[in-house]
């Protein structure tokens, strides 16, 4: 995974609450077998009209926001479906960070697996950032220091999930991190191996030795 440390970039204002993952990528574009190429489908139905032409009033169709790497939105961004296609599409477009007062839980988790940082700031800060972004000013997101800065003296602190923060800063693969605990997993399986609740129907046949991890 690509590491996230600090980012200074154009921020696109999207002052909407409850932006769902169907809006971020409509389900009909989820028939892909790969992770790449979804940037063109990002916010598809907001970004293009019925004939496929860009809607000039949509923020990502305007300069300087075509080059945005940060998105600022309102409450409950990324609610709804668990599709990881949403962060894949953001990333493929070039968005590396979303700032909002709150996020759908699964979306936030999916972001952090793809080097996209979800930053939760209070509603008033997001409103201010929407105005700053609308003025075309750059915003700096620093995961090391857990701060968002926009111009002189304008800064907010945020708290990232400590586990995800470490993974993001290092760009670690989370499966590799988990597999450092393979003995604990095998121990857990061994402890349960004789428990009829997990063996009587044969659906957890747990020979820990057979595990390839």
């Amino acid at each position, binding site marked *: 995974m690509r590491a996230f440390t600090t980012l200074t970039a154009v921020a696109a204002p999207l002052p909407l609450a409850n932006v*769902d993952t169907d*809006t971020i990528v*409509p389900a009909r574009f989820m028939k892909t077998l790969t992770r790449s190429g979804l940037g063109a489908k990002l916010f598809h139905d907001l970004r293009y009209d019925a004939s496929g032409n860009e809607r000039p009033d949509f923020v990502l169709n305007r300069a300087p926001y075509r080059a945005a790497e940060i998105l600022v939105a309102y*409450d409950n961004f990324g609610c*709804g479906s668990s599709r990881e296609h949403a962060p894949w599409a953001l990333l493929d477009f070039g968005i590396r960070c979303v700032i909002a007062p709150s996020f759908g839980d*699964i979306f936030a988790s*999916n972001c952090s697996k793809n080097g996209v940082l979800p930053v939760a700031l209070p509603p008033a800060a997001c409103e201010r950032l929407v105005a700053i972004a609308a003025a075309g000013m750059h915003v700096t997101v620093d995961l090391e220091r857990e701060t968002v800065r926009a111009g002189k003296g304008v800064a907010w602190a945020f708290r990232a999930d400590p*586990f995800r923060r470490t993974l993001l800063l290092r760009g670690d693969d989370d499966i590799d991190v988990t597999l450092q605990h393979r003995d604990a997993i095998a121990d857990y399986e061994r402890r349960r191996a004789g428990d009829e609740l997990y063996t009587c*129907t044969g659906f957890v046949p747990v020979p820990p030795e057979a595990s390839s991890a």
Partner: protein
Amino acid sequence: MCRTLFQKIWDAHTVAPLAGDTLLLYVDRHYLTEITSPQAFDGLRSAGRTVRQPATTIAVADHNVPTSDRRLGISDPESRAQVDALERNAHAFAIRYLALEGAQHGIVHVAGPEQGLTLPGMTVVCGDSHTSTHGAFGALAFGIGTSEVEHVLATQTIAQRPAKTFRVTVDGTPPAGVEAKDIVLSIIRAVGAGGANGHVIEFAGETIRKLDMAGRMTVCNMSIEAGARAGMIAPDDVTFAYLRGRPHAPRGASFERAVERWRSLASDRDARFDRELHLDAATFAPMVTWGTSPEDALPIDGVVPDPASVSDPALRAQLTAKLAYIGLTPGQRFTDVPIDVVFIGSCTNGRLEDLRAAARIARGRHVAPGVRALVVPGSAAVKAAAEAEGLDATFRAAGFEWREAGCSMCVGMNPDRVEPGRRCASTSNRNFQGRQGPGSRTHLLSPPMAAAAAITGRLADVRRFAMR
């Protein structure tokens, strides 16, 4: 120690601490679908990893599958490629695949419980947000992304922070015409679409206890629409009666011993929750959504809200845009809104009990001219059981289409779609923009309310219909 249902399952599945309050949680049951798993299998292969516990993993294709004649196969090449990939991956990694043509096929959240594959006390994950459905059995069940699917395949664990606990207690007798769907829409309206973010909801109270398993699954299914990580209901005699004799439930003396253990899962009397909400079901009414978020729900005898009553300018602008999309005007009566399409089905309301409830309205009546109405059983078993009691004949005689199992018109990924600008009365779970197809307009409601809309050709108050 006073613990909640959630905490008991959490503690029993803790494998190792990671960092901060994140830990590794063991996964008992992993369901796979065709949409969110192909990239996970590719990831496994490219890293040279394999599936740690294939026997706990079940694969079924549901989102992409046509609900017309199955013998014709899948004509859309992309859909076919995803379904083929799931079958191929399942075969390659020794994972059980519920074949499209088989008697066990269905929407994953209908077919899994039906087979007894979801049991109380389990941790259950699937790359689908409506995995919360399985919490109806007293399991901790939640949706995950594709990277997490890969992680669970490789390690049989998932990295999680403890959720906050939120008990929603519903007491009182719901008035006639109020279904499980109306209960959960009322809860979502009270909590808000993001109100339960970071929380696991435990649904409790006499109203919840009196629901059958189908109703409980409807309620837990939509807990994600309030932002909850999961929804759950303590297992009780209703749960055990449902599970007894299911193909993958324990049998004989094992079942009796399992029941004793499952009983101890209920939250302790003095358990503390981070949040509590009490609702009185006697105040509930049949509900309908008027906007593009499930929180936009109101009683059917109400009217479309007026943006002028909203003081915050951004929220007012968003509400105005919402009404423009959905094509309604402030103050308009819901029962005056004409509809084009009716969809009865989905992982929310595609079970036998749902179809029976809709049939009680459809029986001896007829779909209004110009309305297309679909009934899509949630699984092959639901379809067979419904046909055995003649529900298919009831629906067909009333002018409804009777189809094969699948996600169908809930998700706009298969041939069943709502055309742009068309309005659908739908028993599904999401009224998001474009959810049922580009430009589609969705009104969420219960199965009897959907049937009533089909008959009237407008959104309709089911309380004005005699049950048959």
